[in-house]
Each structure stands twice: as C-alpha cells, then as structure tokens.
C-alpha cells in the first residue's frame, strides 16, 4: 500500500464520511459507499495520487457510487425513517422546538431527487463552485445552477410548518 494513500485516508476519511452521510442521509449506506470507493481508489492510487486534486476525484467516485446505487429506496422513505428514529429515540426536550425547523429541513432535503440533493450538498456543505460541482456531477455549470435553483424552490415550497412530517407506525416505514 502506497504511503500516499494512507496519508490521504488519514487526512480525508472523516470529511468523506460526513460528505457521504449528508449525500445519502444514511450513515451506514455512506459507510459502505466510502469503504467501497476507498478500496477501489487504493488499487488505482498510483494514478489518482498523481492528480491535481485527488480529493475531488474521490469525492466524484463517492458521488457516482451513490447516484448509481441500485435498488435504493425512494428518498421519501429515508425522510420517514428520520421521523421514526426521532420518535423512537431522543426524548422531546427544551431544544426540540429550536431544532424542529432544522430537522424538518433535513427531512425535506432527504426527499429531494438525488442529483438535486448532491448539488446542494456540494454547494452548501462542501462549498464548491458551480464549476467544481459540474466536474463532480459530470454535467454543465448550467445544469448545476438549474439543480440548485430547483432544489431551493422545492425546499421553500414545502417549508410549511403545518405539513411537518409526523411519525408513522414503524411497520409502515419498514
């Protein structure tokens, strides 16, 4: 194993996992994707390590792995899962109200189409430029702007507290 790869992992693994988790809204799917991608990257590190931006390339691999993830359940289910986990998990406390709006937004983001979600995660979490997002998603900058504006419109349109997701029976979610 080349030292360069180990160093890359040491430097970037945490960030990659967080990015993948934001992207997938599923920490375990994120874990599997990152692990798969790093194993592939490891075997090709001689080439990847020579690139100008290995992190961008690996991030692109992670993104593609997610976008092509077959049999992935609809994002709507993911959103429901959060609702259920929240309902089953942490007791409602003082800060529940404070976090309610943010968590509602999490659910709405989880319900976005994959590419729109990828675009806004790259923009608002990874702070990428349109050009960088275009490189990761393999599309034009115009398409990137379109993804982001549509996603924001959608998130704004559904930002209605009266329609906040309520927890559903577990059997429905699973």
């Amino acid at each position, binding site marked *: 194993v080349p030292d360069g790869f180990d160093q890359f992992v040491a430097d970037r693994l945490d960030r990659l996992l967080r990015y993948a988790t934001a992207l997938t809204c599923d920490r375990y799917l994120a874990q599997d994707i990152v692990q*798969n991608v790093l194993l592939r990257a490891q075997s090709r590190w001689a080439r990847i390590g020579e690139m100008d931006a290995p992190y961008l390339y690996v991030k692109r691999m992670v993104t593609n792995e997610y976008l092509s993830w077959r049999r992935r359940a609809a994002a709507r289910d993911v959103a429901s899962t959060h609702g259920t*986990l929240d309902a089953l998990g942490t007791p409602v406390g003082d800060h529940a109200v404070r976090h309610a709006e943010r968590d509602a*937004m999490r659910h709405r*983001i989880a319900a976005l189409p994959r590419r729109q979600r990828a675009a806004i995660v790259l923009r608002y979490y990874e702070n990428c430029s349109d050009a960088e997002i275009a490189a990761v998603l393999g599309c034009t900058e115009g398409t990137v702007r379109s993804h982001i504006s549509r996603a924001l419109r959608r998130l704004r349109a559904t930002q209605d507290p009266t329609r906040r997701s309520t927890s559903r029976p577990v059997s429905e979610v*699973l």
Partner: protein
Amino acid sequence: MSDLETLVRQAIAAEASQAVEPAAVLAGLQRGVRPRRRPTTALVAMVGLAVVAGVVAVAVPLTAARTRSDAGNTAPPAAAEQNILLVGMDGYDNTDSLVLARMGASGTLRAVSLPRDSAVDIPGHGVDRLNSAYRTAKAANHGSDTAGAEGLVATVEALTGVRIDHYAVLDMSGLDRLGTAVGGVEVCLRAASHDTITGADFPAGRQVLSGPALLNFVRQRHGLPNNDLDRIVRQQAVLRALAAKLADPAVHARLDTLVAVVRADIRTDPGLDLAGTLRRLASSTSVQAATIPVGTDPAAETRGMLAVDPAAVRAFVGDFLAAPPSAPATPSPGDVSCVN
C-alpha cells in the same frame, strides 16, 4: 445568504454529523473486505434455524459476553471468530429454539439447530430433554436467569464440544413484533394445518405472516407430521425469509430502527453493540445451516425424547462449523420452499 440557504446549510451539517466513526471504515480497509450489503444467494440458501435466529436472537435478547477461564472442550476459536448460542424461549422458561452459530472472521455464518427434545446429559442433573436445561439450572439457583442461561450453555458445550463465547436469549414473542416491523415474511405450507393448542389455522400455499399469526406459526408442533422437527423447519423457513428481508437494502438501511423496535423486548448487557452485531449478521457473505443428527425412530424414544449419539453430534458439529464456505445449496434466490 438567504434564511433558506442558512437553514439548508445547518440541516446538511446536522445530517453530516450523523456519520459513522472513521475507525469503522479503517477496520474494513485494513481487512481489504468490500462491504456486502446484499448477501442474497447465500442467505436464501441457508438451511437452518440459525441464522436469523442470529438476527432475531441478537436483535432481541440478552447477549451477555462471557468471560471464561476454563477452555474446556475444544481450542478457542481464532480471533474475531465467535460462537454464539441463540436461544428462543417461550414465556415459561422452555428453550424451544436453540441455534449454535459461528460468526467467522470473514463474514461467514454457520449455524446448527439443536432440537429441543434431544435427550442430553445436563451437567449436574442427568439425562433430560434439552429444553429443560435452562429451567433446571435456573431453579437450582434461586430463579436466576443468568444461571439458567449458563446452565444451558454448559449443556450445549458438553453436547457439541464447542466452546460458546456469547449467548443471546430471545423471548419468542419478540418475533411477533420483528415480523411486523419488516412488513411480514413469506412462508409456504404444503398442506393446511390446524393447531389444537392455539387454534391457529393456516391454509396451504404461500402466505405472508406477521404479528401473532407469525408467532403461532413458528410455535406450532401439535398437528404436524413430525412434531418438533417440523417446527424447526418452520422456524428455519421464517428465519430465512426474515434474513432475506434484512438483506433488502430498504430494510437493511433501517437496522437502527429495527433495533429500536425489538429493544423493547430485550435484555442486553451494556457492552453489546446490538446494531453492530445485527449488521454483521445481516451482511454475512456466506451462510450455512444444519440440524444435528438425532434419532427419529419413535421406537428409540425415551419419554418422548429424541435419541442423540453424543459422539456423532460432536463429530457433526465440529466438521460443520469448521468447514470452509461452500456453494449455496439452494440455487434460486427468492424461492420460497414449502414446509409442513
């Protein structure tokens, strides 16, 4: 930046903060093993109560890590390899479902079902029905469930010659909820059956069971041609179907939720990583299951117990657990074979 964008940023950051610890991935990288989320063929191929008992039992009960100084029978398993006794129990301290499972270091899972009516030597008690070992040890120790489980473990160790690292005791009623939580499991009956005890009727053919019906299905032995042996096959069918459900990414991705569902029925030791163990079981790459050899000749039965040749059982279990992963015995995924 707009308020909306600020909120989006905060929400994404909150989502990202849910990421698993990097150490979990580092361990996988060091092993060089690709995660397998869909162990379809292997899981569908498993034949034996086991596996899912793994899943069920681990999901459900109390899995106490046991530290033992006496190696006793066989050599200790290699690092990362674990032998777990999975116990399905009714409400009366009868251990009606027993599976000895070995989780291998490389994602393999081998499981041996032990018929509850097997005539075995219970240490300190004599020859009796296997499913009384727990109750006997518990009664002898002021009603201690821990003692009951330890007694059962000692009995199974003596019977199989396998050292058991952990045990998990599952109240079978938890299966009711688990089956419902995964949206029901599909089974197939060769013929309609009627249980004279519970009154449960099941039609012939394929059917999806959950809740109390599922529980009745796995508990029935009266009114079946081969009594408890048919019940074991039913349990194996349910566990197989359940494992297939868990392998479904849509369900698999919600293991945390699933654990939360069954937690309510569970007693676990605080050190147990329930979700982690469940994931490991559900993502096993190779699953093999079998039942120990027992005498099925009614003439050889004593007090309704199945005759068991300890030497044969030891040899069988030793060979089975140690064998390398082999090709799945059942070729077609999604196939639901019919049972009595």
